[in-house]
């Protein structure tokens, strides 16, 4: 498959698969939680008119550009033994990594979902409302209409999370157990270890694996989108 054992001299397949697993677990969970939070927020903002809506949107959009190392430092201060969540013993755990990636991915997902929701025409909303739909029904219709945008949002959030290294290095601590299984080491932080020791080839191999992973997830996303689109046009359920 890869000349991995040649390029990673001390590494075994256990090491390799466990860092992939940690990468997927942390980024996947962070994105899932982010999505659960982002959807209602985006819908809430998208549906309502209130003074300062523009400012809120601007803040969310700014959040897309949060420097990940700053987020990492802030999260570490919060989960550290001395911080407000110190009692939970979260410092240098995968859960702390999930927390920091949640902070990073949520603005991305919220922002893109918001534009997708706002892109759904008023006519669709009015029609749903006019047909006697409750608020929940209207929301469902809008989500259905904006689903491609939402999938894009989730993919963008995942891309932000899985390729990120600054915050998880700080809050996770890059820990590998002595039997070679990863605890808080991900593909990206493993690359920093290889680079630190001058083994650039091994780092590049891991980078290629990361790329394949992101590619796979995006392929999955586009497959979902194309399947949805095909069914939607075939079933004639989309409004013109």
């Amino acid at each position, binding site marked *: 498959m890869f000349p991995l054992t040649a390029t990673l001299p001390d590494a075994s397949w256990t090491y390799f698969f466990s860092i992939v697993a940690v990468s997927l677990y942390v980024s996947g969970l962070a994105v899932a939680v982010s999505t659960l939070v982002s959807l209602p927020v985006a819908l809430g903002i998208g549906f309502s008119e209130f003074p300062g809506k523009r400012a809120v949107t601007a803040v969310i959009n700014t959040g897309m550009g949060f420097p990940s190392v700053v987020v990492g430092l802030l999260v570490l201060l919060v989960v550290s033994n001395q911080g407000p969540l110190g009692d939970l013993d979260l410092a*240098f755990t995968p859960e702390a990594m999930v927390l920091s990636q949640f902070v990073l991915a949520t603005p991305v997902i919220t922002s893109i979902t918001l534009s997708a929701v706002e892109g759904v025409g008023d006519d669709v909303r009015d029609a749903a409302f006019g047909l006697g739909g409750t608020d929940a029904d209207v929301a469902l219709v809008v989500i259905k209409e904006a689903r491609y945008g939402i999938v894009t949002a989730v993919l963008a959030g995942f891309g932000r999370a899985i390729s990120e290294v600054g915050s998880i290095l700080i809050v996770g601590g890059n*820990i590998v157990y002595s039997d070679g299984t990863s605890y808080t080491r991900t593909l990206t932080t493993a690359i920093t270890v290889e680079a630190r020791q*001058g083994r650039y080839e091994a780092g590049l191999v891991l980078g290629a694996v990361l790329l394949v992973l992101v590619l796979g997830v995006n392929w999955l996303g586009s497959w979902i989108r194309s399947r949805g689109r095909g069914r939607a046009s075939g079933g004639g359920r989309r409004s013109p």
Partner: protein
Amino acid sequence: MAIQRRRFLRGAGVAAALGLAGCVSSNPLSQSDESGDETESQQSPEIGDDELTLATTTSTYDTGLLDELHPPFEEAFGITVKTLAKGTGASIRTAEDGDADVILVHARGAEDEFLQEGYGVNRRDVMFNDFVVAGSEDDPAGIEGMESATDAFAAIANSGETFVSRGDDSGTNKKELAVWDESGVEPGGEWYQEVGKGMGDTLVQTNQIGGYTIADRGTYLSMRDEIDLAILVQGPLEGGPTILKNPYGVIPVNPEVHGNANYEAAMAYVGFLTSPRGQDIIDSYTENGSQLFFPSALGEEANFGQYVPQGYSAEQADSLSKRDRQFLYWVDTHVSNDY
């Protein structure tokens, strides 16, 4: 208070069992079962809540030494070690925040401060090696073979050749700044580059831009295959100046300050590193055929290295002749003549 005292006693009991066992045999495990009758550790060698967070320097991690030390320790005590590889400064900060249980670092001045401020207890010397001044083989500043590290640094500064500094408050960085301080040269200007990275990164970067840097011998030796840098000024292991000495110490976090610190496991770790078995592992660890670290916990002269008198400052720690004598004693007793 009662709870802490009990925890201390349990930790002390474990350490005592280990120390006792260590005197009798080079395999503390088989012995601790027999000798543990009077101590609280007799039921099983497993201690604490099974996880120990170690904050240590990149040099111990990147050389691969910990990969040799930790499996037998984990097997012996049923404790899983979580290793955070950071610089010495970052490791100490992590421990001060209560996010680590034990630190393994190499900056005696900072270690003493850490002890004096009450964050750490029961420091032990573990091992040593030395620092070397490395640079490209053509050596444009002409420092090769200099007997004095401070003269070499001054020569680099005068020549305006690039010097790459860790710039990360690590033990190596602290040592480098101490040498600059001694040399009377204020490092600064375009020739002085702080990279803020680990030792391996710094060596790689120095190699690429063709400058000079200071490195611990362990990391230098373990990376010799990846870089073209030569040792231009030797450390005390090969007759160089004692200012380039590099002793490592292990310090558990004080359970009085951080109640959640796993003190029993930390003391077991200290006991293991300083036991004949741990010291043997350090002694026999080689990379590219060279020994990287020399154990210093055991010796004919008892020296626990944990006592820090009041008012003892970092500056004194760096230039105290007693320490230098002790270091040279280690070099004499542990380093073979043809090293």
